[in-house]
């Protein structure tokens, strides 16, 4: 009767404990069904005629929900209608661990005789017990246990019922689990699928918790109930009948006079959800309470009152998610046309707008400095000049390397080190060298500015840098993380001066295999600061044969091997259209813009930086497994690739997304000969499917994988001048090689995790600010250029619009097919394609179109680029080729 099975568990409580417990497998655990004659159950729970009328399952059946279904759909399971459910022990235990209230509820349900819920002790059953396999995660193991139990039930009941229809239906919302279950021939449905199929009980659907996303749609001023973007609010859900569907339409900005249609959550996200069926309703609700206000001073512009002498005016914030604010001011006349900052004071019950007061003026709207200031404020980028306290920790000038420094550092001044950077770069934080060793191997060194030597932990300078987190690069402006003296002078590895560095030196063979690695603090003297183009020229020009060039050629050769190896492992090459502005040297206006060109040398530098980062990550993780600051890039959920797969399918290509490697390979193969830009477009799309890479503390997380780089571990080490994470990594590495002392915060994983959160936030905001800056400069550019005709490709197809990418400018714009004023052209949308048919012309993704680009300055605060279709010609939609542009300016563009 008893089968003994011992298994081994390891738990961590202080140390590693090996816990051995007995696990008995039994053959006297009954299936609990009335039908079964084989099982000698005295009081079977599951009924013979287990009938819930459903269109999906027309036969009697037992339900077998998985853990997540129980956790999230407990409301459904509690309904009197749902009977004859098998709850597995595995499920019950997992529920107990994850949520005590749900556990209590499911136990109550199980105890209810009327409900006919049966708990199957599958883990002690002889045939349904499974052992965790090598490398299998706990969740996967549980899922498998559930599938095995479901399979056993299916087979067992089939045998017991002699072919009479009585089946077991597995309910799961997990896509992977469902697929695997189907492979095993199980009956499996998604929970909502099943519930919706129930006949005669439509009200159950209302109880269906929404698992796909927990966003609630708030529509209309009444329902938003004076909540402002980023407030923490309490929401009441409407009954199902009142839910509305967000459309996959792109809303046009209709100027300030329009009804303030505004959602509390990011509205754009809603609008871009492609609806697969015609009516997919979203949970809709209203705000019933505001838990916490998150007001900050808002930037924007004044809309002057119509009445002349009025002192009350409305203020329109730059951020469209913020409602307009009523302020009282006597200087309205002067403030009009300026960007101003306003704080909200309160929002009375009777008022449509919140009340606020004027804080300060930022300058004339449309002015470059003003706009930059606005976008820095709006993205919460700390950009004030450094305080006296911070500056007091800078080294005294004139600064030179002292005897003590030399003592603890390796002298590498004799090496032929050079740096390769984009043109105009003043904060040079990396330099490279390579040389042949006597034994025929190659020594490769990456030298990183030793910022942590100047920024000591805990002082005001360090705190300020930690707060800023990153240097923000805007068009024509740089917001430094550390004061300029450090960033552009003492830390910058400029040529022909002695600088302190943190060096990472490998010994490699000619196959770029690392034989030996060494980290050391050093002193270097860079022999040349090159731009990518200069370095490329030296490599290509066979006449130059000096040391620097030889070293570069050698590095380039190794980099190619490294890159090949990385690609082999499945590293992704992604693409995003990036542009560079050519600035007028006096006015700093953009006079031309070109897409960034990538040269071999870019990839050469990148390759060695990656190698350094990975080596350092491994080193600091080995040394400090609990508190190493690392960077990870989670693999995206499979569903996020849908759009990419669909897009490729429209061109009869297949994109595999099972692994990074498969994706990389299929992206490489997805080319169309007659359409060379196609591959780039696909890569642009793939980039948008990706998740954000983030910093984290190794002690707080277990998943270290970097998806994009296909590396099991990664960190940032190579840019300490512009990223704070690198400074921390430098400190960790310095402690690891006994070059520096540690301090408490460095070893505290909770403090490290908090720091990582701030860094992630700052990086994200910096990225947004950068984009906003590019967008603003693009507008400036087109303001000067007038109207331009250009070719572009369709990047996305929406219900009422197409989104077009102009590769030449890296510009994205939307062409609408719906108009407020005039009747819109006849159009129909097919989300499967996805394609949009307008007046008999069908737009597919990646179609080539011709558009005219102009600046729409009708709304001074939100100026934007407007695009109109020229080709293909669709009557009523496309416009004639604009001729109005000044001829004089045209040649510049046609280059």
């Amino acid at each position, binding site marked *: 009767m*008893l089968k*003994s099975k*011992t298994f081994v568990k390891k738990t961590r409580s202080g140390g590693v*404990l*090996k*816990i*051995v*417990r*007995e*696990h*008995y*497998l*039994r053959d006297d655990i009954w299936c609990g069904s009335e039908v079964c004659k084989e099982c000698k159950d005295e009081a079977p729970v599951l009924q013979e005629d287990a009938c819930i009328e459903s269109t999906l399952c027309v036969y009697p059946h037992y339900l077998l929900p998985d853990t997540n279904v129980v956790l999230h759909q407990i409301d459904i399971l509690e309904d009197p209608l749902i009977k004859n459910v098998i709850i597995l*022990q595995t499920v019950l235990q997992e529920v*107990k*661990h994850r949520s*005590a209230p749900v556990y209590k509820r499911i*136990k109550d349900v*199980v*105890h209810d005789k009327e409900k006919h819920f049966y*708990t199957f*002790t599958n*883990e*002690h059953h002889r045939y349904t017990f499974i052992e965790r396999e090598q490398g299998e995660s706990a969740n996967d193991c549980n899922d498998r246990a559930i599938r095995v139990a479901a399979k056993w039930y299916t087979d067992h009941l089939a045998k017991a019922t002699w072919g009479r229809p009585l089946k077991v239906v597995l309910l799961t919302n997990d896509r992977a689990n469902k697929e695997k279950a189907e492979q095993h021939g199980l009956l499996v449905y998604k929970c909502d699928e099943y519930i919706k199929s129930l006949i005669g009980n439509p009200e159950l659907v209302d109880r269906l918790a929404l698992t796909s996303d927990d966003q609630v749609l708030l529509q209309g001023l009444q329902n938003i109930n004076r909540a402002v973007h980023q407030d923490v609010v309490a929401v009441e859900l409407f009954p199902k009948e009142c839910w509305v569907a967000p459309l996959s339409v792109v809303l046009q900005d209709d100027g300030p006079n329009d009804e303030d249609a505004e959602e509390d959550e990011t509205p754009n996200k809603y609008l871009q959800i492609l609806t697969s069926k015609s009516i997919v309703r979203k949970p809709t609700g209203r705000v019933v309470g505001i838990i916490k206000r998150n007001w900050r001073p808002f930037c924007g512009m004044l809309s002057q009152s119509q009445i002349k002498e009025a002192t009350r005016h409305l203020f329109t914030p730059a951020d469209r998610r913020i409602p307009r604010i009523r302020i009282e001011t006597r200087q309205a006349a002067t403030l009009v046309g300026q960007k101003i900052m306003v704080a909200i004071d309160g929002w009375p019950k009777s008022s449509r707008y919140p009340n606020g007061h004027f804080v300060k003026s930022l300058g004339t709207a449309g002015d470059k400095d003003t706009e930059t200031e606005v976008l820095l404020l709006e993205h919460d980028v700390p950009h004030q000049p450094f305080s006296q306290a911070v500056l007091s920790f800078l080294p005294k000038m004139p600064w030179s390397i002292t005897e003590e420094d030399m003592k603890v550092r390796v002298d590498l001044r004799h090496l032929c080190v050079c740096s390769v950077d984009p043109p105009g770069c003043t904060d040079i934080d990396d330099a490279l060298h390579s040389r042949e060793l006597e034994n025929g191997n190659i020594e490769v060194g990456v030298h990183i500015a030793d910022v942590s030597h100047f920024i000591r932990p805990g002082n005001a300078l360090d705190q300020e840098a930690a707060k800023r987190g990153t240097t923000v690069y805007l068009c024509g402006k740089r917001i430094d993380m550390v004061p300029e003296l450090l960033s552009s002078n003492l830390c910058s590895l400029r040529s022909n001066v002695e600088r302190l560095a943190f060096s990472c030196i490998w010994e490699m063979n000619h196959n770029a295999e690392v034989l030996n690695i060494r980290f050391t603090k050093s002193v270097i003297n860079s022999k040349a600061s090159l731009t990518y183009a200069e370095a490329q020229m030296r490599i290509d020009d066979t006449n130059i044969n000096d040391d620097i060039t030889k070293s570069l050629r050698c590095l380039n050769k190794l980099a190619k091997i490294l890159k090949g190896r990385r690609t082999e492992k499945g590293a992704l090459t992604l693409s995003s259209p990036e542009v560079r502005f050519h600035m007028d040297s006096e006015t700093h206006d953009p006079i031309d813009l070109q897409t960034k060109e990538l040269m071999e040398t870019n990839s050469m530098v990148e390759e060695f930086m990656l190698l350094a980062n990975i080596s350092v990550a491994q080193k600091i993780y080995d040394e400090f497994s609990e508190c190493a600051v690392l960077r990870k890039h989670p693999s995206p959920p499979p569903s996020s690739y849908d759009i990419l797969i669909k897009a490729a399918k429209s061109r009869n290509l297949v994109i595999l997304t099972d692994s990074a490697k498969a994706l990389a390979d299929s992206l490489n193969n997805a080319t169309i000969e007659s359409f060379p830009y196609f591959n780039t477009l696909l890569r642009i799309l793939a980039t948008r499917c990706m998740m954000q890479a983030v910093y984290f503390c190794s002690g707080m997380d277990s998943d270290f994988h970097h998806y994009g780089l296909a590396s099991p571990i990664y960190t940032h080490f190579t840019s300490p001048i512009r990223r704070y994470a690198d400074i921390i990594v430098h400190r960790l590495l310095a402690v690891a090689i006994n070059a520096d002392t540690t301090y408490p915060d460095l070893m505290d994983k909770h403090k490290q995790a908090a720091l990582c959160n701030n860094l992630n936030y700052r990086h994200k905001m910096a990225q947004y600010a950068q984009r906003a800056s590019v967008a603003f400069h693009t507008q400036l550019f087109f303001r000067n250029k007038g109207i331009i005709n250009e070719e572009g490709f369709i990047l996305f197809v929406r219900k009422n619009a197409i989104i077009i990418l102009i590769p030449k400018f890296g510009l994205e714009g939307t062409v609408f097919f719906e108009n407020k004023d005039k009747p819109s052209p006849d159009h129909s949308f097919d989300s499967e394609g996805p394609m949009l048919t307008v007046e008999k012309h069908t737009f597919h993704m990646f179609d080539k179109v011709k558009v005219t680009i102009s600046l729409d300055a009708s709304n001074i605060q939100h100026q934007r680029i407007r695009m109109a279709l020229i080709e293909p010609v669709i009557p009523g939609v496309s416009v004639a080729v604009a001729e109005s542009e000044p001829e004089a300016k045209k040649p510049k563009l046609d280059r």
Partner: protein
Amino acid sequence: MAGLELLSDQGYRLDGRKASELRKVQARMSVFAQADGSAYLEQGNTKALAVVYGPHETRGSRSKSLHDRAVINCQYSMATFSTAERKRRPHGDRKSSEMSLHLKQTFEAAVLTQLYPRSQIDIYVKILQADGGNYSACVNAATLALVDAGIPMRDYVCACTAGFVEDTPLADLCHVEESGGGTSLSLALLPRSGNIALLQMDARLHQDHLDTLMEAAMTASKGLSKVLDSVVSQHLKEVSVLTRD
């Protein structure tokens, strides 16, 4: 999170047993040739080794010896590797001394000591792996060793623990159940007569429940006695096969 659920609603315990079920018991006798009697016993993951020397002349001071019966000398120890965390002292600590004393009392009640006046019987037990019910494993192993040594006893001494969870008595507790903080009752029984050789209980229990708990422990002990009996007869069979002719 709530503590461990020792007994599920379906009546299964953490390791899959039902409330009244014992762990798997396996035993062997005569594991050492050197000693007069020896036995090795596994009760689930609790593993005990018992060795018996004697009866022989009293060692040490004569004053210890009794004129009318044999002295029973017990020593209990635990291997350093017997628990999840390494033990510092294998024997001689308070717990071990107490356990030694308990064993002594148990076997004084069972062994016919009056047959061997002025002599001594040594019982050494060692726990090789501890997973709850150490005392009972020791008693059971020692019983087999005594049988192996051919020392006359009134009856087998069979010991078993029992706990009490949610109005249900649990037989033969494992370590997790024992350390859960509930009641734990150790009972050493002379099964045929139903006499109790030793009874010990930790933690509080309502008086009303004592009877059911005792009943469960008795049933479990009786169950064990059957197992021990079969081990002995099996052993006898093997030995008689070997010694035939």
